[in-house]
């Protein structure tokens, strides 16, 4: 069976038109993701995590290498790959329910069908009573939940999430992690999930991809032994194996961050 997603020798360079400089964001990234797998991605800030997701989404063209989804090279964005953006990117002139139903509207799903899907996701992300509010009336965390619901409501086969829980309070974050875990099992979609939280990465992922400091490379891929069905808060914290893996991932990232700090210090 072919991989759901194959990333092969991916390189990405940004070109800044004003300073005429190129920035190497990703240098030679390769990894594979199986269908139905939940892969989390961690790495120091600026190492190219958002860049990687936007390349897989087809929003940018890689400088070198290729991305295959179901064995077919990605040539542009498509409804098979949904994305939750780090900046939320929900439209300020659409209400909560108009935003959540946007993808379905674009796919020309009938109004009745749409409304029932919207109602389901509104409930799932706990935004009942806010259906007709505009984004500026919502808190940062609520906006983020709208963004998550909007992407999931469109029912993509691959979900790319860029720190979707970053702006939430601790309690909501834990709830939504469990919720996302449940959805991932239910919807049978493949998920690539970028996060800054090691706890989150280990709790959610079947595997954790650790990227090196800028420019990004795959430093290490850690497989989480337990199956996703078994994980619950807070009992997971009592699991010795879970805590050990967390510690390992944490150390691995910290090493990168420290080395990054040293290099910047030397440059300055």
């Amino acid at each position, binding site marked *: 069976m072919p991989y759901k997603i194959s990333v092969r020798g991916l390189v990405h360079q940004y070109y800044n038109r004003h300073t005429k400089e190129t920035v190497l964001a990703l240098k030679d990234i390769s990894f594979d993701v199986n269908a139905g797998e939940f892969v989390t991605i961690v790495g120091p800030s600026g190492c190219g995590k958002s860049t990687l997701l*936007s390349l897989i*989404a*087809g*929003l940018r063209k890689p400088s070198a290498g290729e991305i295959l989804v179901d064995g077919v090279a990605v040539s*542009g*964005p*498509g*409804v098979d*790959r*949904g*994305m939750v*953006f780090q*900046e939320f*990117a*929900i*439209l*300020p*002139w659409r209400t909560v329910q108009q935003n959540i139903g*946007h*993808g379905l509207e*674009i*796919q020309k799903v009938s109004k009745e069908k749409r409304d029932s899907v919207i109602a389901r996701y509104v409930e799932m992300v706990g935004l009942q009573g806010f259906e007709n509010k*505009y*984004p*500026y*009336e919502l808190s940062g965390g609520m906006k983020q939940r709208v963004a998550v619901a*909007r*992407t999931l409501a*469109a029912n993509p086969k691959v979900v790319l999430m860029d720190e979707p829980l970053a702006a939430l309070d601790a309690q909501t974050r834990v709830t939504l992690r469990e919720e996302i875990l449940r959805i991932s099992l239910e919807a049978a979609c493949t998920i690539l999930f970028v996060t800054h939280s090691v706890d989150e990465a280990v709790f959610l992922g079947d595997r954790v991809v650790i990227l090196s400091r800028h420019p990004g490379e795959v430093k290490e891929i850690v497989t989480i032994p337990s199956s996703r069905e078994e994980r619950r808060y807070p009992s997971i914290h009592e699991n010795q194996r879970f805590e050990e893996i967390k510690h390992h991932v944490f150390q691995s990232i910290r090493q990168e961050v420290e080395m990054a700090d040293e290099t910047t210090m030397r440059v300055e």
Partner: protein
Amino acid sequence: MITDKSSSRIYAIISFSLLVIIWWSITNFGVISTAYLPTPLQVGTEFVSSVEKGTLLANLGISLARLLGTYIFASILGIAAGVAMGLSPNVSRFFRPILSFFNAISGITWIPFAILWFGLGNATIAFVIFNSVFFIVAQNTMTGVQTVPEVFEQAMLTMGAGHLRIIWEAMLPGALPSIVTGQRLALGFGWRGLIAAEMVAGSVGIGFMIFNGSYDYRPDVVLMGILVVGVVATLLDQFIFAPLERRTIERWGLV
């Protein structure tokens, strides 16, 4: 909010009342001869009689019709041009210098040129209004489209939206505050261009009425006309565009 609004209204009433009182004292006690500056009463009387005679409303109606027709036409073209420039960096790099240049030339500067081309009459007036409106609308629309965050477009792309849909559902609403600001500025510029052009090239219209008043040695007609021009412009701005602008910006929290 409410107290803010009503207190600024009170200030407006006080400052205008003061102005009228000063005007009244100067003219009534002969500081300036009424041959040069008519009294408030004379201007008021002229206002009533010109309404009765039909001259004011007919002239005003003609002026507004001229303004509105050209304004709408120029706005549609301006918005279309602005969107095209906003969407394509190449198109905007090519046209932006031209746009800034034409924006620097105020609409009334075109009057002599327009007369050379079109003679005296409606075509010249329309040309001047068009020039006062088109460039400012295009400029503001372009800026508005360019400031729409790229992630909105990207998000719609990942949901499978086509380009027309992205323009309609992301670019235009995102640019709307800037477009409304442009429309508001353009209406003000268009109105000024219209009055000036009517003075030189018109045979009817409120601008012509004012200009003709000075030929007839009727300072009351001239001043009444000027006040009507000011009041109409203020009403258009304060009662149509200011609330519209506030509304689009407030409603979506785009500050």
